[in-house]
């Protein structure tokens, strides 16, 4: 069961692909307004954990309790993948999943999909309710773009934008649904040091402004160490350690896991 101050609690999560245990009996929990980091070397199972939380994969075992906006809680495993966002949980993707042929603004508007109340008929005929809704949500999207400093690109196609902008657009899209928990898969991948630093500030600002929790995955330690309140380290799908950035950095198990993988990479 969820404690008072928790938004997400994963218990005994396991999933296998063929013989490979990608996630093995993993448990951790995230508190309200916390920025929580999940780290581990490449192939540790971080993205798989994300896919289990968001129901892209159905775990073989374990529960994922999530705090609802009305204060109750639910086991995410009981929901379909497209229902997850309605609960207040939204994600980004490791390889940025945007629609190239749409403008920046329209991409952000996709994040408002669940907010539309007008029926298809009302939309097809552009009846007043559909018109009003579209306008209000468009203004909200523009406001979010302003906050992320990409308002001036709102009418440009996503196609051809630099990687840093794409990451921001994806982040903006998650904010449209007024989430209580955002999960980010390697948000700093592909960014340089300056951009990573800005991203860290942005994530903190989002947490404060939008009053939500953030779960972020990184295999690169720079961002996590900077921004996370608590960190969980995993390796080969198994729990290694949990604690503050400092505690994790000096943890011998974590060091070994990273060192081990570094040696493999060199080999």
């Amino acid at each position, binding site marked *: 069961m969820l404690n008072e101050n928790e938004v997400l609690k994963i218990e005994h999560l396991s999933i296998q692909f063929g013989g490979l245990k990608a996630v093995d009996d993993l448990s951790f929990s995230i508190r309200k307004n916390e920025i929580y980091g999940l780290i581990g070397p490449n192939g540790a199972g971080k993205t798989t954990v994300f896919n289990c939380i968001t129901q892209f994969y159905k775990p073989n075992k374990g529960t994922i309790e999530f705090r609802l906006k009305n204060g109750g809680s639910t086991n995410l495993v009981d929901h379909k993948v497209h229902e997850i966002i309605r609960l207040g949980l939204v994600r980004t993707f490791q390889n940025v*999943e945007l629609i190239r042929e749409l403008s920046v603004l329209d991409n952000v508007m996709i994040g408002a*999909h669940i907010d539309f109340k007008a029926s298809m008929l009302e*939309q097809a005929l552009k009846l007043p309710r559909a018109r009003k809704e579209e306008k209000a949500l468009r203004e909200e999207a523009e406001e979010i773009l302003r906050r992320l400093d990409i308002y001036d690109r709102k009418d440009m196609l996503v196609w051809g934008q630099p990687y840093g902008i794409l990451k921001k657009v994806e982040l903006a899209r998650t904010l449209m649904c007024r989430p209580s928990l955002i999960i980010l898969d390697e948000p700093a991948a592909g960014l340089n040091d300056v951009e990573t630093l800005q991203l860290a500030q942005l994530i903190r600002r989002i947490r404060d402004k939008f009053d939500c929790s953030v779960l972020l995955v990184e295999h690169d330690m720079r961002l996590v160490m900077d921004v996370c309140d608590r960190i969980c380290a995993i390796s080969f799908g198994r729990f290694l350690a949990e604690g503050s950035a400092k505690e994790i950095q000096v943890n011998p198990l974590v060091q070994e896991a990273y060192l081990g993988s570094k040696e493999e990479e060199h080999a």
Partner: protein
Amino acid sequence: MNKVKTQLNFKALFKNPYVQFILFGLVLSTLPLLSIQFSFIKSAYITTVGVALIYAIAALGLNLLLGWSGLISLGTAGFMGLASYISAYLTVDMGLPFEVALLAAILVPTFIGILVGLVSLKIEGLYLAIATLAVSEILRKTFEEFDQFTGAFSGKSAKFPQLFGMFQLDRGSTYWLIVFILILVMLITYNMVNGQIGRALNAMRGSEAAAQAMGVNLLKYRLVAFALATIFASVAGVLYVHFIRYSYPSSWTLKLSLDFLAMIVIGGLRSIYGTVLGAFIVFAVPDLFLKQIPYFSQLSYTLNGILIILVIMFYPNGIVMIFKDIRLWVLKLLKKGDRNHVK
């Protein structure tokens, strides 16, 4: 001062997409009047242009499916044919009003279209193309075999529509009905693709993972895409049979389904005007002009093929983009002119 203001208002008015659609409709509606006024526009042209506009309606449905949703169908002709037979049968044999026949001729094919949509969740790409082709061919076989319903190879005849049981249309006024419905379909398509539905379809095509994460129910929107495509094809089928006043099994072959594909690829994927343009290029141009030239009448297949290749190479977003380029080019020239003036 006042004059400048009204001029500006005019400009804004013409930029309004709804005004543009209505103007486009008005331009199309002048054709029957022109053919009375000027003898060089033969009245047969009305038939050709009318059929091109009917095809444009079906092609818009296919564009929603392929262009916006990324789903393929080679079954458009079959659904269009089914609707044409249903409407002919209900009005001629059963004596039902045109409006009732229209409704039934939309509902039955759309039901089948939705079943195909259900299948589309399991199969994709080439396999979906083959499955829809199979459905279409089964339908065509049915048109050939069920002769008390379809008249088999001798065809099924129908009359010009009678609206509200009172207004008997003739060829010219049926043409106007076609224009009216085409503009309506264009407006509805415009509204949908520029709102929540269109973004959901776009997301489904662009990234299924992102679509699902943003709450788009893939099954629902696949069904929506197939239902819309079938509704548009059915409307086109009904208009066709009451305009040409005949439906033959040989009108609903794979060739026609491929023509629809050619229309949207040549005219412009995800472009409303492009689809209409494509229907003209693929159907009306060969019929109006190329038939006059010896040998060329047999070449429309080849010509479509060549056009598709050229378009994909030079205008991957469709020939409709040529207009944009021309506009930019003219604007550039005008600007140059201005600058010279200042000097």
